[in-house]
């Protein structure tokens, strides 16, 4: 069944059927409109979700390639330095590596400071000053589980004390 170039090509109710070139033209325009409509639907539908993913993947690929290229560049220079100056060239090598590697992105100063403060707090909590051998042990007072106040100084001159810091027995 061929394309009806000549002859009647359908007709809307109440309209005369289209004939000849006019009919072909109308069919072509209609097809184009359908294609445009379909493309618009795709753009608003599935492609709207897929496009950002493609953009991210492309960006990641570019970053990886850039990092690899920089690292490879640094490696090549280090090997070159090694070949030319086998001794005493560590400083040159380090500076070469740092100059070739991509610099870290500059973070927001406020955010970086907050992060540093959090790290310092954690370190203070986990890496506290310790008791030194042959130095006076810091005094403390704390009620025992029965409510009796216990101070280290209570034992001075009377008893030695073995202070056991327990992990927890519960």
């Amino acid at each position, binding site marked *: 069944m061929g394309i009806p170039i000549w002859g009647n090509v359908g007709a809307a109710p109440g309209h005369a059927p289209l004939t000849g070139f006019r009919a072909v033209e109308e069919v072509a325009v209609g097809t184009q409109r359908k294609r445009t409509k379909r493309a618009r639907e795709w753009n608003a539908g599935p492609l709207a979700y897929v496009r950002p993913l493609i953009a991210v993947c492309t960006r990641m690929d570019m970053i990886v390639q850039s990092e690899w290229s920089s690292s490879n560049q640094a490696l090549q220079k280090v090997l070159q330095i090694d070949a030319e100056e086998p001794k005493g060239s560590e400083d040159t090598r380090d500076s070469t590596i740092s100059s070739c590697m991509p610099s870290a992105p500059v973070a927001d100063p406020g955010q970086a400071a907050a992060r540093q403060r959090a790290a310092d707090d*954690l370190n203070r*909590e*986990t*890496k*506290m*000053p*310790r*008791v*030194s*051998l*042959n*130095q*006076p*042990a*810091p*005094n*403390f007072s*704390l*009620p*025992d*589980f*029965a409510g009796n106040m*216990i101070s*280290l*100084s209570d*034992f*001075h*001159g*009377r*008893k*030695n*004390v*073995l*202070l*056991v*810091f*327990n*992990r*927890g*027995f*519960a």
Partner: protein
Amino acid sequence: MAQLRQDYPQFVARDIEVVVVGPEDTRAFSDYWHKESLPFIGLPDRKASVLKLYGQEVNLFKLGRMPAQVLIDKAGVARFVHYGHSMSDIPKNEEILALGDEINARTDVGA
């Protein structure tokens, strides 16, 4: 803790009072002490005040406090300090008892 209880008379014989500091609350301490019939002093340190004072390490990756032991002589001087690097890094009682003997011998000579 069981080993400490077992050897407690030997600590007493050397004028050593055992004081256990832990993160549990008063009730947990009381229950555990009565259940295990522990003869030494138990100090609930919920606010970690003594922990901070003595620098007991908290290892987040090992989920809690690392064990630590400090032997303090009658003059209030730390004569043995051990900070454990793992849960099982705890010195043997024999080592501490021997040190107690040494401390007492020095005190006797000094007196």
